[in-house]
């Protein structure tokens, strides 16, 4: 070192470098969150899609919200009670101000309950959650009474999804007007600033929020659907937290001291549906390709064998990199409808082979299973693993995967014998999967809408229908449990696992975890 000159040069260069480096941490209260799916609209009542609801929950709120175990807790409604079997009364929180300064009153609530049915151009309107309400009125500015035609216990769960908007601000607006900011007046912890479609949404803290104020003065929600891009954004410091950490990078994140990894079981069940109702099924033949005399899936022993042959722990370890929880139930532990009487399914290929032989298939048969390849985490790989496990018990399995757009269409036409599917219990209880996946298909009443295997068990339906009319929580939970036990004991579908949601954040932050696959900037706080 040639003394002072060199040291001076070094200092100058360092200063220059620091000056040129982007000032990322200038404002300690700026929080940037990397989300994995962009919303399709800013209108919180336009389209029932998880990314839309996720983003809307920053600016808007609901009367009732779901806690981490799927149970309803007060949000904008301070309390509620049932006046009689078909009447609910909600008391609104007083002093809640919208972002434009006006107060939340019962009128806004009535408006928000009416609006979903009037939305145009949406394939997924929210009126499915307001349909049950046949009459409603405001008893006073802070009390709302709603009536249903028949006893309807899922009223609170339905209200999880109805965001309360300001009547004054949203009257006469079309859904696309919200993207420019009109009507973006909510009661939530953040105020809307700007939305750039498929790029980002910018928010500022609502200092007049009725609850605990958010930890951040400015929030940017960036939409980064590409896994590597999202991870790189976190590693480079462009965002402070991300959701859905790509599974192949989990070990790298765990080993990185600068980043904290959060995980929580999600209410999304990944399972296999089976074509159990038809006498002839399209994709099962004997090993030489000739059709079989009867559909093996109709035999309970065959279904049990198929379920026993799957090593769910191996799938968790090898395919999902530890990010799944083997399931024997329709919903995770502590959710309503979880049954402790459905034991963990231990993989037992020997017993499976015996059952197959008992059922009359000592040499197995040949089958093609189907799965989507761009919808669920590692969906394709899971299907391939299942195929390999089944080949060990004597079944020749081919796997055919396709994009979800095509898959759902074909599954709806009952093109498949065995297929992979996922289901998120959005209402926080087992009634959701039971009704959609296992109830006898009845188009009129929206039963069995996704029951691609056309499983139909009158006992399951009876218990489910009774539960759907029972408002007493304990009783309903019991009935749902029994219905699930009946359906799964009969192997109406083969549950594989529940996905585990992951989040990663810069060290020094805590996050209030959720099971509904949403991510909210409000839940992130510095330690």
């Amino acid at each position, binding site marked *: 070192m040639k003394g002072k000159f060199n040291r001076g040069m070094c200092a100058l260069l360092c200063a220059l470098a620091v000056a040129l480096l982007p000032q990322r941490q200038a404002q300690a209260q700026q929080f940037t969150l990397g989300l994995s799916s962009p919303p*399709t609209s800013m209108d919180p009542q336009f389209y029932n*899609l998880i990314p839309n609801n996720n983003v809307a929950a920053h600016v808007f709120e609901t009367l009732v919200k779901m806690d981490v175990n799927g149970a309803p807790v007060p949000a904008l409604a301070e309390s509620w009670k049932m006046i009689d079997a078909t009447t609910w009364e909600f008391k609104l929180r007083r002093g809640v101000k919208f972002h434009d300064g006006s107060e939340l009153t019962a009128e806004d609530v009535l408006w928000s309950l009416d609006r979903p049915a009037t939305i*145009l*151009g949406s394939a997924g309107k929210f009126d499915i959650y307001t349909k049950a309400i046949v009459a409603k009125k405001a008893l006073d500015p802070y009390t709302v009474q709603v009536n249903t035609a028949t006893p309807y216990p899922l009223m609170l769960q339905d209200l999880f999804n109805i965001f309360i908007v300001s009547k004054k601000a949203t009257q006469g607006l079309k859904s696309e007007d919200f993207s420019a900011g009109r009507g973006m007046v909510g009661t939530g912890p953040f105020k809307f600033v700007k939305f750039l479609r*498929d790029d980002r949404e910018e928010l500022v803290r609502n200092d007049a929020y009725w609850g605990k104020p958010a930890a951040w003065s400015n929030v940017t929600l960036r*939409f980064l659907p590409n896994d590597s*891009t999202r991870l790189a954004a976190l590693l480079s410091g462009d965002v402070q937290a991300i959701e859905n950490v790509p599974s192949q990078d989990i070990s790298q994140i765990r080993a990185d001291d600068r980043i904290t990894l959060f995980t929580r079981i999600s209410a999304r069940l990944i399972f296999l549906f089976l074509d159990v109702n038809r006498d002839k099924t399209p994709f099962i033949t004997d090993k030489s390709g000739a059709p079989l005399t009867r559909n093996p899936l109709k035999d309970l022993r065959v279904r049990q064998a198929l379920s026993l042959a799957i090593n769910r722990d191996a799938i968790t370890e090898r395919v999902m990199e530890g990010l799944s929880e083997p399931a024997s139930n329709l919903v995770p532990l502590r959710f309503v409808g979880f049954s402790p009487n459905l034991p963990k399914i231990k993989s037992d290929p020997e017993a499976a082979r015996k059952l197959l032989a008992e059922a009359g298939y000592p040499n197995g048969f040949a089958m093609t299973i189907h799965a989507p390849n761009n919808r669920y985490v590692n969906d394709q790989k899971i299907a391939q693993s299942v195929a390999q496990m089944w080949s060990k018990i004597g079944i020749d399995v081919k796997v055919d995967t396709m994009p979800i*757009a095509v898959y759902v269409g074909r599954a709806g036409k009952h093109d498949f014998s065995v297929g992979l599917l996922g289901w998120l219990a959005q209402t926080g209880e087992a009634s959701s999967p039971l009704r959609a996946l296992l109830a006898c298909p009845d188009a009129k009443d929206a039963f069995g809408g996704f029951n691609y295997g056309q499983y139909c068990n009158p006992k399951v339906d009876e218990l489910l229908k009774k539960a759907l009319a029972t408002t007493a929580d304990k009783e309903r939970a019991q009935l749902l449990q029994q219905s699930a036990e009946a359906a799964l004991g009969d192997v109406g579908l083969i549950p594989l696992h529940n996905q585990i949601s992951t989040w990663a954040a810069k060290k020094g932050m805590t996050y209030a975890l959720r099971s509904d696959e949403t991510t909210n900037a409000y839940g992130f706080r510095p330690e």
Partner: protein
Amino acid sequence: MLVFIIRRLMQSIAVLFVMSLLVFCGVYAIGNPIDNLIPPDASAADRARTIAEFGLDKPLWEQYASFLHNALAGNLGDSFAYSTPALKLIMERFPATMELAVCAILIATVLGIPLGMWSAMKQKSAGSKIVLATSILGFSLPTFWVGLMLIMLFAVKLGWLPSSGRGEVQTLFGVPLSFLSWDGLRHLILPALNLALFNIALVIRLTRAGTQEALLQDYVKFARAKGLPNRRIIGVHVLKNILIPIITVLALQFGSIIAFAIVTESVFAWPGMGKLIIDSIRVLDRPVIVAYLLVIVMLFTLINLVVDVAYSLLDPRVRLSEIKG
């Protein structure tokens, strides 16, 4: 020239019509978008109602007829997924993609032509060989991999540049552009470079080949004999003569870049049209797919028209009208 332009425009209208028909039928054949958009809890009555609302229950020819009817009035339909006019969605994203594409082409031209010419003039030098070797890399390395490597190096390891996204946007003549600010430029460099790499390599090779050939021509010898400075010979005369193949390729590439910058846009989370089309295809959002492809066809036609006109300007021997007799 005017007749030529008018004739070309008429041809392009015919192409647009055929294209819209093909895409319409193609997307219709794949499946029903409703199955992807409708929420799980919906009943069959809801499904039927939604299908009727979107007009998907009518027979194909009727849907196409109403599409044509609206298209002639300038309305290309509302997106199924976003319920926003499809054309508006595309035009919202168009400036971002254009910005990226123009930047990429500029980089390719500014880097490619001088490097190619230099490599042709100094053929035996080590520098020329290095340039050629790296141009091979430009061809062969896949765009998404290079993009990710650029992000890993410049954003994650060195932290010099942002890892993704578009920078600060200012409106110029009503068009939102980001290259006017330093922050915008910082966000633009990596994706533009990523997109340009293949084209830099292409332009280097084309320029080199063209220059090598041109340098052997008589007019170069004559110009040297006349005593013109090298700079003028190479920079004016040779350049003009080698530009035609380069312009052809650049024009084709420009169209390609705009239409299919999907990979770069996905990797760099650049809010452009490429991402829009991929997402729309995934959910079978037919109005957006049709509108997008029509816009692209229009663009390609315009680019080709501009290139043909440019030929006639560059090379006086080129006649735009058909040769009779």
